[in-house]
């Protein structure tokens, strides 16, 4: 079963995404910010894909994305960004940093699951 890491400081969003992914047969791990997310990545060596919020306490999503890509052990992990942010400059930064897609909240859950399944390694 593919394992997806959801990194979002909103428990409601983690629940919402986690439920949709679980119903699609995917395993889910949750983290509440970028620091927690990096710790979860270190704990779980079988993560297939990350879903990453941008605005979070301690470490934001873009900083976490760049940290993942700097580390050879995690650089190939596919990352989807799911956020309220829609500015083209931020989208461009995520693209340059190696994210696979940028999703703007709220996203229809069936479309979200399709994108996750498409990119999960």
């Amino acid at each position: 079963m593919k394992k997806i890491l959801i990194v979002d400081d909103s428990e409601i969003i983690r629940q919402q995404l986690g439920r949709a992914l679980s119903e699609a047969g995917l395993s889910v791990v949750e983290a509440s910010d970028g620091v927690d997310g990096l710790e979860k990545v270190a704990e779980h060596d079988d993560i297939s894909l990350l879903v990453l919020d941008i605005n979070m306490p301690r470490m934001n999503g873009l900083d976490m994305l760049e940290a993942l890509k700097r580390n050879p052990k995690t650089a190939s992990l596919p990352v989807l960004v799911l956020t309220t942010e829609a500015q083209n400059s931020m989208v461009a930064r995520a693209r340059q940093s190696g994210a696979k897609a940028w999703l703007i909240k709220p996203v229809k859950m069936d479309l979200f699951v399709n994108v996750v399944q498409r990119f999960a390694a």
Partner: protein
Amino acid sequence: MAAERHHATPPRGTGATPPAQPGVFDTLIQSSTVALFHDYGVAAAPLTPTFIGVEDFRAHYPLAAIGFRGPGMDAALILSIPLEVSAHVRMEASRQLDQRDLARELVNQAMGRIKNRLSQYQVTLKCGLPASANTLRDLDRIAPQRGPLTVYRLRTIYAQILVATKGAIDPSHLVYSSATVLNGEGDIIVF
């Protein structure tokens, strides 16, 4: 969309009468929040203008707020969702929704929409993180202590949603440009 604008403390120079014509910022806030609740299955519409006091605003819990800054702006967006309304917000969560977390997430998403629409007016906002509050006084750690409290009421069939801004907002910095291409809520941009 017919706008309404309510000042707990009327801004200097406006007297006691709400402005007859809505400003761009008023319309952005109203349209953004109406669209947000529509996306979560709650139909909302602006009410006719009335003054509303701070005490009335406190009656609607839970509260959540997010600070924002930009050219001519140093303020916070505040959202109060009565439990009668939040019970009908369609978020497919697996566990019971925490009302404060729900309010935080919705004010965050409302701010995202407003921020996105303001980029079409050549304004880039810097926003803080959303936080919940039990009283309006708690909001002092998020919202600037100076500046008017402007309250927008949205009617639903369950109860009124209150959206407010507290702080300085100078709409003269808004300059519309159709050249800015906006990404929209629900968009999926695959690289």
